[in-house]
């Protein structure tokens, strides 16, 4: 899906600049992106370089985040795991967005039995606790990175379906939609050109918030041993492995935990800021300034 029209994106970007928490969130996300793409080269050591002579060393100049019970460099593993988290977040939210928005558009535009069948299906998914559903899906498909992505994607699909459907229901009653019908535009064209751009704002917000929850869910699944399989690094898995050493080696849990915390916080900050900016009822910061001047 394209991110609405240029207007939405441009307006969002210009307004975000004037919002300090959003700037901070954006910087963290950019950092995460760089680490995710180039983590392997940034890491001072290999992710699986076992060195039994350097087991459980506290943070030092050689190993800023310390070493784990196998003598592996924790910093290198945290950096490498960023890629996993990003991948899982983007792919699973991508799945949820694609399926959820399609379902929501069909349900909201055609209403009637289409709406009933699709949304009751979504309600069933929605009724399960997030983690329980994800665990059930992993149990059926077997643990692993791809399954985790699919499971998290399925879990977040109903939210997108609902947000989309609600938007479609209000936009379809607008006069400009009737105007588009009156000039002979097809359903597909009206949905693509008129409905989707006008509901892009809540979807963009939902996407950024869902990325945070998806990464958290991946951490939870990995913690339970149902996500990324060892020895591949993942923040959730590292937390799990570190829990046995909480008293003697705090750095095993603190650094991956902080990575999860910062990432989720950053997505939330950006998501909240986008929500404020994209709410059509209120002016953006820069627009408000211009109108006062």
């Amino acid at each position, binding site marked *: 899906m394209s991110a*609405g*029209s240029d*207007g*939405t994106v441009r307006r969002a970007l210009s307004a975000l600049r004037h919002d300090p928490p959003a700037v901070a969130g954006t910087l963290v996300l950019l950092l995460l992106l760089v680490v995710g793409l180039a983590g392997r080269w940034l890491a001072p050591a290999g992710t699986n370089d076992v060195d039994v002579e350097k087991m459980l060393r506290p943070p030092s100049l050689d190993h800023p985040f310390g070493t784990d019970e196998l003598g592996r460099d924790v910093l290198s593993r945290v950096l490498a795991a960023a890629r996993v988290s990003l991948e899982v977040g983007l792919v699973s939210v991508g799945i949820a967005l694609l399926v959820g928005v399609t379902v929501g558009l069909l349900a909201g535009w055609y209403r009637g039995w289409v709406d009933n069948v699709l949304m009751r299906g979504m309600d069933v998914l929605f009724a399960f606790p997030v983690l329980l559903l994800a665990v059930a899906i992993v149990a059926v498909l077997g643990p692993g990175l791809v399954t985790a992505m699919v499971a998290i994607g399925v879990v977040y699909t109903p939210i997108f379906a609902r947000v989309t459907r609600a938007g479609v229901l209000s936009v379809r009653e*607008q*006069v*400009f939609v*009737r*105007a*588009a*019908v*009156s*000039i*002979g*535009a*097809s359903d597909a*064209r009206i949905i693509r*050109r*008129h409905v989707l*751009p*006008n509901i892009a704002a809540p979807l963009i917000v939902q996407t950024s918030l869902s990325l945070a929850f998806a990464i958290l869910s991946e951490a939870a699944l990995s913690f339970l041993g149902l996500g990324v399989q060892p020895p591949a690094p993942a923040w959730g898995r590292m937390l799990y492995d570190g829990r046995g050493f909480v008293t003697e080696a705090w750095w095993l849990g603190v650094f991956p935990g902080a990575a999860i915390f910062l990432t989720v916080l950053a997505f939330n900050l950006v998501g909240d800021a986008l929500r404020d900016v994209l709410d059509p009822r209120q002016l953006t910061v820069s627009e408000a300034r211009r109108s006062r001047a």
Partner: protein
Amino acid sequence: MTTETAPDAAAGELLAELDDLRVWFPAGGGARVRAVDGVSLAIRRGETLGLVGESGSGKSTAGLALLRLVDPTSGRVRVGGRDVTRWSRRRLRGLRRRVAMVFQDPQASLDPRRTIGASVAEPLVVHRLVDSAHARRRRVAELLELVGLRVDLAGRHPHELSGGQRQRVGIARALAGEPDLIVLDEPIASLDLSVQAQIMNLLRGLQRDLGLTYLFIAHDLAAVEHMSDRVAVMYLGRIVETGTPAQLYRQPAHPYTAALLSAVPVADPKVERRRRRIILRGDVPSPIDPPGGCRFRTRCPQARPDCAEVDPALTEITAGQRAACPYAGEAVRAMLAGPEAPFPDGPAPRTTGR
């Protein structure tokens, strides 16, 4: 005022027609709102048919029916000699090139996220009327010029334009597909008074230059008189009177038309002092359960016992003027004659005459 355009138009080819059309909407609990309840209209090529009535009279619904934007409950819709009543959604897209629509609120009828140029170009794209981006831009520029807008407005968004400019965009969009008929649904009602006149002049100029046919829907009687070759008055889902503006405005035959017109102030103080206002009692009855017999009888100062019995059809009063009232001329004369007019179970009609 507008009589000079009337005679030729009346002889034109039949372009669009509603035949005993009913559009009923479900209203919950099995009830149905009879928005349009037996309307027949004929629109001839090159003319402007004015459709007046209070809100809720069904005039907009009748206009929507011409584009099949609402589904008729019964009756027929014909456009260009073809019965489009049961056309499929796919076929209707072709119809909607030949019949275009201009909406009341130009702010609401333009997609806020699309540029003016994109909105005006949409019919061109939908009906594949241009084969390159260059041709599209040229045609959009042409259309904007035609409605008196600067070409550089094409890159703007609706919120950057004034109300009058936005309505010009709405008109340009309606013209893009080179339609035969344009349904103008209260096109000036949400505009400032000074802008209203500009838009009406624009519409008349376009009609003259492009040979357009209009269905002009409005509640503003003066605007309808100014714009129309023929006028139809609607009340509660029915047409109660039709004729030329000259006939209706000088010699209304139906009591409802007379009451509507008596509410319009006259600019000449001498005439204004002599003007009698006919005050109608009560509200328009619910279109869910309209009165039996004549629908206007519950509010008609001239209602007689047998008005409850017979549902009057439109009958010819004078050449070209038809009214749905068996007592047509005589009832109106009695109403305008003053307070001694019969006015069963209610206060005598107040008049401003002295």
